[in-house]
């Protein structure tokens, strides 16, 4: 089959690789009809996630048609149309039973690696380094889906691929980011990052009853999308003191909750500060450039919540612990427990509360993927979200 392989930093190519096959009884093979490039794929592309190997198939947002099932899969049959959640979860361990699927205790065959780096192991994730299991990803014609009796969501109505594809990651991730804010009537939510996850976080914050949502970014076209689709207010951070501006917009209180939808490769407007963390990251003295997170903590109202859904991989510097502790800020975070959100969010799509296809700006074939990575990374051509057709 054809598949997009990581070849090294800033290098991906479409290669011919063997077709996947059923290995365990609870596996299914899915013929992929739509697959997307995630902002977190750029962390792999940029070489900031350790334990990548040349030849790794990328992609963790995909959907398609079931073409084969293992002997223990009872809920799916060949021909079913399914969306596949990015975390691989067994459904049986204590974390899965508590619906914390991205903390699954069984799905990562490389658990020992994660345990060494993070103290405890991570769950398995499709196409997301060997730290999360070394699973082939979904930017390919086919994928093997382990624990197919737990993860994949069957789509039985005539919704288009683009309306349901993002249930695999970014819609639930944005939604969980908003849910972690425990939104109360009157709350103002500030969101750093108007990428696809930030867009869904903004829309979700309104779905969950936020009074106002303020989205912070530096790309006009992305801010415009947040304003038009979610009805968010926008703040271009270039040449702006964001913390002061947010105070101004909230009568001095600061946002009730802040969402970091940026993660480890954030950008800073002040050259010297950006250079400081950029250099430290390049020298591997820290793995993150955490401007958005630092700012979110400082901006948040005292006693408020900072929800971190942008991806981090290791260790960061100059973390404002004093502000966090003395002002009783709560940090909530985690990889999204996608399986928990898929069905309720599908219901919201069905009811017409949201149409997730609004983020799609680029529709390309799988063969165009290497070019699409460049376009997405450099935010050329007003790119927000790329969907690939294998």
């Amino acid at each position: 089959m054809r598949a997009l392989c990581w070849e090294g930093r800033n290098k991906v190519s479409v290669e011919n690789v063997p077709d996947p096959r059923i290995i365990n009884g609870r596996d299914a093979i899915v013929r992929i009809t739509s697959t997307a490039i995630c902002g977190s794929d750029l962390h792999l592309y940029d070489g900031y996630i350790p334990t990548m190997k040349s030849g790794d198939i990328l992609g963790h947002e995909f959907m398609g048609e079931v073409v084969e099932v293992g002997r223990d899969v009872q809920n799916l049959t060949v021909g079913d149309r399914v969306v596949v959640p990015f975390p691989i979860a067994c459904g049986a361990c204590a974390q899965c039973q508590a619906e914390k699927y991205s903390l699954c205790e069984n799905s990562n065959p490389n658990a020992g690696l994660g345990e060494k780096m993070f103290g405890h192991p991570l769950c398995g994730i499709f196409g997301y380094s060997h730290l999360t299991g070394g699973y082939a990803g979904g930017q390919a014609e086919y994928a093997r889906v382990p624990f197919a009796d737990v993860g994949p969501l069957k789509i039985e109505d005539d919704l288009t691929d683009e309306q349901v594809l993002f249930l695999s990651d970014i819609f639930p991730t944005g939604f969980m980011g908003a849910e972690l804010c425990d939104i109360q009537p009157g709350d103002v939510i500030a969101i750093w990052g108007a990428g696809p996850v930030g867009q869904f976080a903004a829309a979700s914050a309104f779905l969950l009853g936020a009074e106002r949502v303020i989205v912070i970014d530096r790309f006009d076209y992305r801010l415009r999308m947040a304003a038009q689709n979610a009805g968010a207010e926008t703040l271009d951070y270039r040449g702006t003191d964001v913390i002061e501006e947010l105070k101004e917009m909230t009568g001095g209180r600061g946002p009730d909750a802040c969402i970091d939808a940026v993660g480890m490769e954030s950008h800073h407007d002040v050259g010297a500060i950006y250079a400081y963390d950029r250099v430290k990251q390049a020298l591997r003295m820290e793995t993150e450039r955490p401007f958005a997170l630092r700012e979110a903590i400082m901006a948040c109202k005292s006693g408020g919540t900072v929800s971190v859904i942008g991806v981090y991989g290791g260790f960061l510097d100059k973390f404002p612990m004093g502000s966090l502790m003395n002002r009783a800020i709560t940090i909530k975070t985690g990889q999204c427990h996608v399986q928990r959100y898929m069905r309720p969010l599908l219901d919201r799509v069905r009811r017409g509360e949201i149409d997730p296809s609004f983020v799609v700006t680029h529709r390309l074939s799988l063969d165009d993927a290497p070019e699409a990575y460049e376009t997405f990374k450099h935010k050329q051509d007003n790119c927000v979200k790329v969907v690939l057709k294998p």
Partner: protein
Amino acid sequence: MDTQMQDGHAADQKDTVARALGWFSLGLGTAQIAAPRVVERLIGLNGDRQAVMRLLGAREVASGVGILAQRRPTPWLWARVAGDAMDLALLGRAFRAADARKARVAGAIAAVAGVTVPDVLESLRVSASRPVRVKASTTVRRPVEAVYDFWRDLSNLPRFMIHLDSVEERGDRSHWRATAPGGRTVQWDAELIDERPNELLRWRGSGQVPNEGTVRFVEAPGNRGTEIHVSLAYEPPAGELGALVAKLFGEEPQTQIKDDLRRFKQVMETGEIVVSDGSPAGVSAKQQLRQRPAQPLEVTS
């Protein structure tokens, strides 16, 4: 060979003597680097060999840090012995030098010879073969009866202990076979020396690989299932067989036992061993270090 559960990790071989020698190295090395001239005068030299003295100081500091900071101080203790020999040789030359104050040099030789004795004794002590001890634990979300029964049926063990080929029960004894990398078979017999249903299994193995261990089964609090605590010790045999056993259990036997427990949990909770394209044989420490790319395997049947 005793296996008391509280014995802890294999490598905790440092006692007061080793620690004292480590601090001695650090102190001496620091003095040699910071005040080489003073040290030289003290041992009867005229103070014109500061560069050599600083190098010797660096060597001392390295040994000291190694002994104090490393889990296994053995090579660093032997480094001290080698250092003693080097110092004695250098002092011997200094004694013959024209400008040396012989009484002081002789005193220094006596001092080095004096410290060589505990260095050699301690190095020999920590180098002596002793059982490797490891322990690891996991929690499985299943009732203690189910977990115990699965483990008690020893023929199930190779399902999650991947280095085992088979375990055969023969009356009150069992016969264990494993294949080491390279295809050589290692085998041993074991007997259950204590068996308390839903609570504990204790065994002792004899033959090529003397070993002894305990598995405890404990109900986890708040309906969290069953805690499994494994503690085992084995006597690494010498020679060629020893090398085979080392290969079998890997450099880090504790990692191996942990991986075994992860697979045990997978089998008990999900009914299968979790595999990926990068780790087609499932959890194993060695494989985690030598991943193949995350793309499907070529079918070779």
